[in-house]
């Protein structure tokens, strides 16, 4: 009997969690879809965002994410390759780098916002700009990106490395042509984690990329991301509910699309390089 009761409790708890999640998504879809249209995606926000669309905000979001990934991805992959291929097991330098990355991974995002504000905006004089915001996010996602890529590169079978050596390939071509494509599912996984964190981030951006909702003209302009837009509409603008919900739907869709892009990119790379 108690076995049945236990099972019932487990099912009940899980059903509660799933039910709550469905409630959230249902509510979001119900409120947001009504306001979502082609026009909404491309027009300027009006009346502090109550009316109009999210065109400039989408552009700023994509620009910030662009800065983030153009800096984080090459650096992240390079550091991951160094950790996996150029350090011995138990090497002091490697362990220190790993330790500091793990510590960085634990720092709360609002603290990255504080640092970004003090370092990029004021010390380096970038001001509230898309560049400061993007670099702050890059710093924030680097640890998880590096550790995932490192795991991927070091799990590539040694047979591949021996094969490359036997063919007389240089270290760098072996890395570029063999190891990275073979590790590309892990790189994509790291990228997906990074995309999830970066596009959802709000706290680190409020004081680095700022609030401005005009169309950005350069990387040095301030621009708000979708998540900051949602925050602003729900907290500071009365009557912004409908556009906030629609923006939330767009944000979820954006994360989904970027995730799928990352996956297909890794698949292509792997196929293009290895199955010639």
């Amino acid at each position, binding site marked *: 009997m108690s076995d049945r009761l236990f099972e019932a409790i487990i099912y009940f708890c899980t059903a509660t969690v799933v039910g709550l999640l469905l409630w*959230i998504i249902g509510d979001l879809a119900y409120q947001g879809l009504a306001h979502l249209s082609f026009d909404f995606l491309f027009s300027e926000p009006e009346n502090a965002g109550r009316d109009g669309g999210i065109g400039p905000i989408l552009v700023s979001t994509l620009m910030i994410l662009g800065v983030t990934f153009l800096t984080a991805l090459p650096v992240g992959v*390079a550091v991951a390759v160094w950790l996996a291929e150029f350090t011995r097991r138990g090497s002091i330098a490697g362990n220190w*780098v790993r330790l500091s990355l793990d510590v960085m991974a634990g720092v709360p995002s609002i603290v990255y916002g504080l640092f970004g504000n003090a370092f990029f905006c004021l010390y380096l004089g970038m001001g509230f700009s898309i560049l400061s915001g993007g670099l702050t996010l890059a710093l924030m996602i680097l640890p998880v990106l590096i550790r995932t890529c490192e795991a991927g590169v070091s799990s590539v079978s040694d047979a591949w490395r021996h094969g490359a050596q036997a063919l007389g390939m*240089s270290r760098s071509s072996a890395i570029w042509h063999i190891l990275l494509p073979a590790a590309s599912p892990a790189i994509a996984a790291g990228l997906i984690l990074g995309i999830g964190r970066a596009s959802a981030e*709000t706290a680190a951006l409020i004081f680095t990329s700022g609030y401005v909702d005009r169309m950005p003209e350069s990387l040095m302009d301030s621009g708000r991301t979708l998540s900051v837009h949602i*925050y602003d509409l729900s907290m500071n603008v009365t009557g912004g509910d409908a556009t906030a919900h629609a923006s939330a739907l767009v944000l979820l869709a954006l994360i989904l699309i970027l995730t799928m892009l990352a996956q297909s990119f890794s698949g292509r790379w792997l196929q293009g390089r290895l199955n010639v």
Partner: protein
Amino acid sequence: MILSKRNTLFRWGADRQLQPLLAALALATAAMLLLIVTFLLLEAWPVVANGRWRDFFTDESWYPLEGQFGLLPMLWGSIAIMVGAMILAAPLGLAAAIFASFYASGFVLRVYQMLMALLAGMPSVVLGLWGLMVLVPLLAAWQPPGASLLAAMLVLSLMILPTVALASASALASVPKPLMAGAAALGMCRKSQIMKVAIPVARHGIWSAMLLAVARALGETMVVLMVAGNVVQYPHGLFEPVRALTANIALEMGYAMEDHRAGLFASGLMLTSIVLLLAWLAGMTAKRELHHV
């Protein structure tokens, strides 16, 4: 097939430069941590130096414009929200992990995993939006003002639930199969197999999952900023508004100057130390060897 170079038999220039280049990048990345800590300390220095840090604990409350930097009400606010969220998320998350590891299979498991991944990937600002638009009005109709400790606990528990559920599930998955088979062979019922064998064996992993969730809960900003009401006071009731440390930084950074700004950086430093301590404890707990029952 290998197109990038003229001759693969000789070490070429790029190869010799590769290692120092990568090493320099790696060290630069690691040095960013030092840079972060340095900048936080530098910015916080005016209110930390000369024993002024004691004011964070002795000043009555947070009136930065009058030079009062008491952080305790907000620290307790953060802790109260975290404890409440954990009380809700720990049993629910553990139950969900047990469901995924022992009860669900096939199609149901796939749907469950998809939904859990969706919840884990849900931006916190979207959860906050839901809390603000749906939950807070519901609470306000029952016990005004609505935006309160309870609202923050509820929404935050949803936010950390996937952390508990996914990390506990992976701890449960690492329980050696022969142990479970032995338990089944002894004729133990499902409940005893789980409660008396699987969970005790996986307890370190589960504790580590809980500590990770605690660290996440304390570091989270948007949810508590949007639904907790943001009144600086000691938490003394579920329906009273409170302000968390993270929310305070987000609220005041926009206009803070001089000592006030330094105070915010100091609270960020304090928050970071607490969260890092918890993450370190979680790592230590997870590393402990599995002691079989």
